[in-house]
Protein backbone atom coordinates (compact mmCIF):
# COMPACT_ATOMS: atom_id res chain seq x y z
CA UNK A 1 0.00 0.00 0.00
CA UNK A 2 2.81 2.40 0.90
CA UNK A 3 4.41 1.87 -2.49
CA UNK A 4 1.21 2.95 -4.12
CA UNK A 5 0.96 5.93 -1.81
CA UNK A 6 4.46 7.09 -2.60
CA UNK A 7 3.64 7.15 -6.29
CA UNK A 8 0.94 9.75 -5.80
CA UNK A 9 2.15 13.00 -7.21
CA UNK A 10 -0.77 15.28 -6.59
CA UNK A 11 -1.14 17.13 -3.37
CA UNK A 12 -1.72 14.59 -0.67
CA UNK A 13 -4.24 15.11 2.05
CA UNK A 14 -3.38 13.34 5.27
CA UNK A 15 -6.15 12.99 7.85
CA UNK A 16 -4.97 12.14 11.35
CA UNK A 17 -7.69 10.35 13.29
CA UNK A 18 -10.55 8.36 11.84
CA UNK A 19 -13.41 9.34 14.09
CA UNK A 20 -16.76 10.56 12.83
CA UNK A 21 -15.27 13.79 11.55
CA UNK A 22 -12.17 12.16 10.11
CA UNK A 23 -14.17 9.45 8.33
CA UNK A 24 -16.73 11.86 6.92
CA UNK A 25 -14.04 14.20 5.70
CA UNK A 26 -12.16 11.34 4.08
CA UNK A 27 -15.30 10.19 2.26
CA UNK A 28 -16.06 13.70 1.12
CA UNK A 29 -12.56 14.62 -0.02
CA UNK A 30 -12.18 11.33 -1.84
CA UNK A 31 -15.40 11.93 -3.71
CA UNK A 32 -14.10 15.36 -4.66
CA UNK A 33 -11.21 13.62 -6.37
CA UNK A 34 -8.40 14.22 -3.87
CA UNK A 35 -5.66 11.79 -2.91
CA UNK A 36 -6.57 10.99 0.67
CA UNK A 37 -4.94 8.88 3.36
CA UNK A 38 -6.52 8.39 6.80
CA UNK A 39 -4.34 7.48 9.76
CA UNK A 40 -5.58 5.88 12.96
CA UNK A 41 -3.97 3.62 15.54
CA UNK A 42 -7.09 1.46 15.75
CA UNK A 43 -7.99 -0.69 12.78
CA UNK A 44 -11.67 -0.80 13.78
CA UNK A 45 -11.88 2.96 13.37
CA UNK A 46 -11.78 2.56 9.59
CA UNK A 47 -15.18 0.86 9.68
CA UNK A 48 -16.67 4.32 9.90
CA UNK A 49 -15.54 5.01 6.34
CA UNK A 50 -18.26 4.55 3.78
CA UNK A 51 -18.20 1.48 1.53
CA UNK A 52 -17.47 3.64 -1.49
CA UNK A 53 -14.32 5.15 0.02
CA UNK A 54 -11.43 4.35 -2.29
CA UNK A 55 -8.68 6.33 -0.63
CA UNK A 56 -5.96 4.86 1.55
CA UNK A 57 -5.91 3.90 5.21
CA UNK A 58 -2.87 3.53 7.42
CA UNK A 59 -2.76 1.97 10.89
CA UNK A 60 -0.23 3.87 12.95
CA UNK A 61 0.18 6.08 15.97
CA UNK A 62 0.15 9.61 14.63
CA UNK A 63 2.14 10.96 17.57
CA UNK A 64 5.17 8.90 16.55
CA UNK A 65 7.71 10.63 14.36
CA UNK A 66 8.09 7.34 12.51
CA UNK A 67 4.56 7.73 11.15
CA UNK A 68 5.47 11.11 9.70
CA UNK A 69 8.53 9.63 8.02
CA UNK A 70 6.61 6.71 6.57
CA UNK A 71 4.01 9.05 5.14
CA UNK A 72 6.80 11.16 3.66
CA UNK A 73 5.19 14.28 4.96
CA UNK A 74 6.64 17.48 3.56
CA UNK A 75 5.79 21.14 3.04
CA UNK A 76 3.33 20.36 0.28
CA UNK A 77 1.23 17.94 2.31
CA UNK A 78 -2.15 19.14 3.50
CA UNK A 79 -2.75 17.92 7.00
CA UNK A 80 -6.05 17.66 8.84
CA UNK A 81 -5.71 16.75 12.49
CA UNK A 82 -8.93 15.44 14.01
CA UNK A 83 -8.16 12.84 16.70
CA UNK A 84 -10.44 12.79 19.73
CA UNK A 85 -7.89 14.34 22.07
CA UNK A 86 -7.03 18.04 22.04
CA UNK A 87 -3.57 17.43 23.43
CA UNK A 88 -2.79 14.83 20.81
CA UNK A 89 -3.99 17.21 18.11
CA UNK A 90 -1.78 19.97 19.47
CA UNK A 91 1.27 17.70 19.53
CA UNK A 92 0.69 16.38 16.01
CA UNK A 93 0.11 19.86 14.58
CA UNK A 94 3.19 21.30 16.21
CA UNK A 95 5.38 18.42 15.09
CA UNK A 96 4.01 18.88 11.56
CA UNK A 97 4.72 22.60 11.61
CA UNK A 98 8.04 22.74 13.44
CA UNK A 99 9.74 19.51 12.42
CA UNK A 100 8.26 18.86 8.97
CA UNK A 101 7.40 22.46 8.00
CA UNK A 102 3.95 21.55 6.71
CA UNK A 103 2.31 24.72 5.38
CA UNK A 104 -1.35 23.78 5.55
CA UNK A 105 -2.51 22.34 8.85
CA UNK A 106 -6.10 22.34 10.02
CA UNK A 107 -6.70 21.15 13.53
CA UNK A 108 -9.77 20.55 15.63
CA UNK A 109 -9.79 21.76 19.23
CA UNK A 110 -12.71 21.00 21.54
CA UNK A 111 -11.56 23.36 24.24
CA UNK A 112 -11.21 26.92 22.91
CA UNK A 113 -9.22 27.90 26.00
CA UNK A 114 -6.28 25.90 24.74
CA UNK A 115 -6.07 27.94 21.59
CA UNK A 116 -3.46 30.25 23.10
CA UNK A 117 -0.75 27.64 22.63
CA UNK A 118 -1.28 27.97 18.89
CA UNK A 119 -1.07 31.72 18.58
CA UNK A 120 2.48 31.94 17.39
CA UNK A 121 2.33 28.87 15.16
CA UNK A 122 -0.38 30.11 12.82
CA UNK A 123 -2.16 26.81 12.68
CA UNK A 124 -5.80 27.00 11.61
CA UNK A 125 -8.02 25.68 14.35
CA UNK A 126 -11.63 24.65 14.25
CA UNK A 127 -13.62 24.66 17.44
CA UNK A 128 -16.94 22.77 17.32
CA UNK A 129 -18.26 24.76 20.29
CA UNK A 130 -17.78 28.10 18.55
CA UNK A 131 -19.16 26.77 15.28
CA UNK A 132 -22.28 25.52 17.02
CA UNK A 133 -22.72 28.79 18.87
CA UNK A 134 -22.47 30.78 15.65
CA UNK A 135 -24.81 28.49 13.79
CA UNK A 136 -27.43 28.56 16.53
CA UNK A 137 -27.07 32.32 16.68
CA UNK A 138 -27.71 32.51 12.93
CA UNK A 139 -30.81 30.34 13.15
CA UNK A 140 -32.13 32.43 15.98
CA UNK A 141 -31.56 35.59 13.96
CA UNK A 142 -33.33 34.10 10.94
CA UNK A 143 -36.30 33.35 13.11
CA UNK A 144 -36.22 36.92 14.32
CA UNK A 145 -35.62 36.04 17.93
Amino acid at each position, binding site marked *: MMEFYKKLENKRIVIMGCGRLGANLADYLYEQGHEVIVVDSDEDAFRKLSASYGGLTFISDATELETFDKLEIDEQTTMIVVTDSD*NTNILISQVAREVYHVKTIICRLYDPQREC*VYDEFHIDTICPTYLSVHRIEDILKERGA
Partner: protein
Amino acid sequence: MKKNVLLVGGLHKAMSLAQSLLNKGYAVTVINDNYNDCMTLASIEDLEVIFGDGTKPFVLEEADGENMDIAIALTNKDDDNLVICELCKKKFHVKKTVALVRDPQKTRFFYQMGIDSVVCAINAITGIIEQQAFIDEMTNIISVEDGRVNILELKIGHHMPSVNKKLWEIDLPSEAIIGYILRNDQGIVPRGDTRILAGDTLIVICDQYVQQTVTKELTGR
Protein backbone atom coordinates in the same frame (compact mmCIF):
# COMPACT_ATOMS: atom_id res chain seq x y z
CA MET B 1 10.19 33.99 49.67
CA LYS B 2 9.55 30.31 49.17
CA LYS B 3 9.78 29.11 45.61
CA ASN B 4 6.59 27.64 44.21
CA VAL B 5 6.73 24.38 42.32
CA LEU B 6 3.86 22.82 40.42
CA LEU B 7 3.79 19.09 39.66
CA VAL B 8 1.23 17.82 37.17
CA GLY B 9 0.30 14.14 36.89
CA GLY B 10 2.17 11.03 37.93
CA LEU B 11 1.56 9.33 41.25
CA HIS B 12 4.75 7.75 42.50
CA LYS B 13 7.03 10.19 40.72
CA ALA B 14 4.98 13.12 42.00
CA MET B 15 4.97 11.73 45.53
CA SER B 16 8.67 11.23 45.89
CA LEU B 17 9.49 14.45 44.09
CA ALA B 18 7.01 16.42 46.22
CA GLN B 19 8.42 14.94 49.41
CA SER B 20 11.96 15.77 48.45
CA LEU B 21 11.09 19.31 47.34
CA LEU B 22 9.11 19.99 50.51
CA ASN B 23 12.08 18.86 52.57
CA LYS B 24 14.22 21.34 50.66
CA GLY B 25 11.86 24.16 51.57
CA TYR B 26 9.83 24.64 48.39
CA ALA B 27 6.09 25.26 48.35
CA VAL B 28 4.68 22.39 46.29
CA THR B 29 1.32 22.02 44.54
CA VAL B 30 0.29 18.86 42.70
CA ILE B 31 -2.46 18.41 40.14
CA ASN B 32 -3.80 14.93 39.44
CA ASP B 33 -6.84 13.81 37.50
CA ASN B 34 -7.43 10.62 39.45
CA TYR B 35 -9.41 11.09 42.66
CA ASN B 36 -7.87 8.11 44.48
CA ASP B 37 -4.38 9.27 43.56
CA CYS B 38 -5.26 12.68 44.94
CA MET B 39 -6.27 11.12 48.25
CA THR B 40 -2.96 9.26 48.40
CA LEU B 41 -1.04 12.42 47.59
CA ALA B 42 -2.97 14.35 50.22
CA SER B 43 -1.42 12.16 52.91
CA ILE B 44 1.77 14.18 52.52
CA GLU B 45 1.83 17.03 54.97
CA ASP B 46 1.98 20.61 53.64
CA LEU B 47 1.35 19.44 50.08
CA GLU B 48 -1.38 21.22 48.21
CA VAL B 49 -3.37 18.80 46.07
CA ILE B 50 -5.75 19.77 43.28
CA PHE B 51 -8.03 17.26 41.63
CA GLY B 52 -8.44 18.03 37.93
CA ASP B 53 -7.04 17.76 34.42
CA GLY B 54 -3.81 19.74 34.36
CA THR B 55 -4.02 20.25 30.62
CA LYS B 56 -7.02 22.53 31.11
CA PRO B 57 -6.23 26.19 31.60
CA PHE B 58 -8.82 26.76 34.34
CA VAL B 59 -7.35 23.95 36.46
CA LEU B 60 -3.90 25.53 36.16
CA GLU B 61 -5.46 28.84 37.10
CA GLU B 62 -6.92 27.30 40.22
CA ALA B 63 -3.46 26.00 41.07
CA ASP B 64 -2.29 29.61 40.93
CA GLY B 65 -0.26 29.03 37.77
CA GLU B 66 0.65 32.71 37.57
CA ASN B 67 2.77 32.51 40.69
CA MET B 68 4.64 29.31 39.95
CA ASP B 69 8.39 29.44 39.59
CA ILE B 70 8.78 25.94 38.20
CA ALA B 71 6.24 23.66 36.51
CA ILE B 72 7.00 19.97 36.04
CA ALA B 73 4.83 17.75 33.81
CA LEU B 74 4.98 14.10 34.86
CA THR B 75 2.03 12.45 33.11
CA ASN B 76 2.47 9.28 31.07
CA LYS B 77 1.46 10.93 27.85
CA ASP B 78 3.86 13.01 25.81
CA ASP B 79 1.09 15.13 24.31
CA ASP B 80 -0.32 15.99 27.74
CA ASN B 81 3.10 16.95 29.03
CA LEU B 82 3.71 19.14 26.01
CA VAL B 83 0.42 20.98 26.43
CA ILE B 84 0.90 21.42 30.19
CA CYS B 85 4.29 23.01 29.70
CA GLU B 86 3.15 25.18 26.80
CA LEU B 87 0.16 26.45 28.76
CA CYS B 88 2.33 27.16 31.79
CA LYS B 89 4.83 28.99 29.65
CA LYS B 90 2.54 30.95 27.37
CA LYS B 91 -0.56 31.57 29.42
CA PHE B 92 0.85 31.71 32.92
CA HIS B 93 4.42 32.81 32.19
CA VAL B 94 6.02 30.25 34.45
CA LYS B 95 9.76 30.86 34.43
CA LYS B 96 10.91 27.28 34.13
CA THR B 97 9.09 24.33 32.67
CA VAL B 98 10.23 20.73 32.83
CA ALA B 99 8.65 17.89 30.86
CA LEU B 100 9.01 14.16 31.12
CA VAL B 101 9.05 12.56 27.70
CA ARG B 102 8.60 8.87 26.91
CA ASP B 103 9.69 8.81 23.30
CA PRO B 104 13.40 9.69 23.08
CA GLN B 105 12.93 10.85 19.50
CA LYS B 106 10.78 13.73 20.67
CA THR B 107 13.32 15.24 23.05
CA ARG B 108 14.62 17.70 20.48
CA PHE B 109 11.14 18.68 19.38
CA PHE B 110 10.15 19.46 22.97
CA TYR B 111 13.14 21.76 23.35
CA GLN B 112 12.19 23.36 20.05
CA MET B 113 8.77 24.11 21.50
CA GLY B 114 10.37 26.23 24.19
CA ILE B 115 10.31 23.82 27.12
CA ASP B 116 13.27 24.61 29.33
CA SER B 117 14.19 21.12 30.37
CA VAL B 118 13.21 17.79 28.85
CA VAL B 119 13.83 14.58 30.74
CA CYS B 120 13.66 11.33 28.85
CA ALA B 121 13.15 8.52 31.34
CA ILE B 122 14.11 5.80 28.86
CA ASN B 123 17.41 7.46 27.98
CA ALA B 124 18.22 8.09 31.60
CA ILE B 125 17.49 4.50 32.62
CA THR B 126 19.32 2.83 29.73
CA GLY B 127 22.23 5.14 30.47
CA ILE B 128 22.39 3.97 34.06
CA ILE B 129 22.05 0.32 33.10
CA GLU B 130 24.82 0.62 30.55
CA GLN B 131 27.01 2.30 33.10
CA GLN B 132 26.36 -0.45 35.63
CA ALA B 133 26.99 -3.19 33.09
CA PHE B 134 30.36 -1.82 32.05
CA ILE B 135 31.39 -0.75 35.48
CA ASP B 136 34.76 -2.56 35.23
CA GLU B 137 35.91 -0.66 32.22
CA MET B 138 34.94 2.75 33.37
CA THR B 139 34.35 3.64 36.94
CA ASN B 140 31.77 6.28 36.32
CA ILE B 141 30.15 8.22 33.53
CA ILE B 142 27.93 11.21 33.97
CA SER B 143 26.02 12.39 30.92
CA VAL B 144 25.01 15.98 30.44
CA GLU B 145 23.18 17.73 27.63
CA ASP B 146 21.16 14.60 26.82
CA GLY B 147 24.23 12.45 26.53
CA ARG B 148 26.13 14.67 24.11
CA VAL B 149 28.79 15.44 26.67
CA ASN B 150 30.14 12.86 29.08
CA ILE B 151 32.13 13.26 32.24
CA LEU B 152 34.26 10.17 32.82
CA GLU B 153 36.04 8.98 35.87
CA LEU B 154 39.06 6.88 34.87
CA LYS B 155 41.32 5.01 37.26
CA ILE B 156 44.89 4.75 36.06
CA GLY B 157 46.72 1.48 36.68
CA HIS B 158 50.45 0.68 36.41
CA HIS B 159 50.33 -0.90 32.99
CA MET B 160 48.30 1.81 31.26
CA PRO B 161 49.79 3.81 28.38
CA SER B 162 49.31 7.21 30.01
CA VAL B 163 51.24 6.42 33.20
CA ASN B 164 54.21 8.67 33.87
CA LYS B 165 53.40 10.85 30.91
CA LYS B 166 52.90 14.58 31.03
CA LEU B 167 49.55 15.78 29.81
CA TRP B 168 50.96 17.42 26.70
CA GLU B 169 52.57 14.15 25.73
CA ILE B 170 49.20 12.43 25.52
CA ASP B 171 47.42 12.61 22.20
CA LEU B 172 43.89 13.50 23.28
CA PRO B 173 41.23 14.57 20.75
CA SER B 174 40.47 18.28 20.88
CA GLU B 175 36.91 17.54 22.08
CA ALA B 176 38.28 16.18 25.34
CA ILE B 177 39.98 17.66 28.37
CA ILE B 178 41.33 16.23 31.60
CA GLY B 179 39.68 18.53 34.08
CA TYR B 180 40.82 17.19 37.40
CA ILE B 181 43.15 14.61 38.91
CA LEU B 182 42.48 12.89 42.22
CA ARG B 183 45.69 11.69 43.82
CA ASN B 184 45.73 10.24 47.35
CA ASP B 185 42.53 12.05 48.29
CA GLN B 186 43.99 15.28 47.06
CA GLY B 187 42.67 17.16 44.06
CA ILE B 188 44.93 18.63 41.40
CA VAL B 189 43.84 20.94 38.64
CA PRO B 190 46.14 19.65 35.92
CA ARG B 191 48.29 21.72 33.58
CA GLY B 192 50.17 20.70 30.48
CA ASP B 193 53.23 19.70 32.47
CA THR B 194 51.37 17.70 35.12
CA ARG B 195 52.51 14.08 35.15
CA ILE B 196 49.97 11.26 35.42
CA LEU B 197 50.91 8.66 38.01
CA ALA B 198 49.62 5.16 38.64
CA GLY B 199 46.72 5.23 41.08
CA ASP B 200 45.45 8.57 39.87
CA THR B 201 41.78 9.06 39.13
CA LEU B 202 41.22 11.31 36.15
CA ILE B 203 38.06 13.30 35.59
CA VAL B 204 37.72 13.73 31.85
CA ILE B 205 35.13 15.87 30.09
CA CYS B 206 34.54 14.91 26.49
CA ASP B 207 32.15 14.73 23.58
CA GLN B 208 30.35 11.37 23.44
CA TYR B 209 31.87 10.63 20.03
CA VAL B 210 35.43 10.69 21.26
CA GLN B 211 34.78 8.82 24.50
CA GLN B 212 36.14 5.55 23.06
CA THR B 213 39.28 7.22 21.75
CA VAL B 214 39.88 9.03 25.01
CA THR B 215 39.46 5.87 27.06
CA LYS B 216 41.79 3.96 24.78
CA GLU B 217 44.42 6.69 24.82
CA LEU B 218 44.44 6.94 28.60
CA THR B 219 43.79 3.41 29.79
CA GLY B 220 44.66 1.34 26.73
CA ARG B 221 41.24 -0.32 26.63
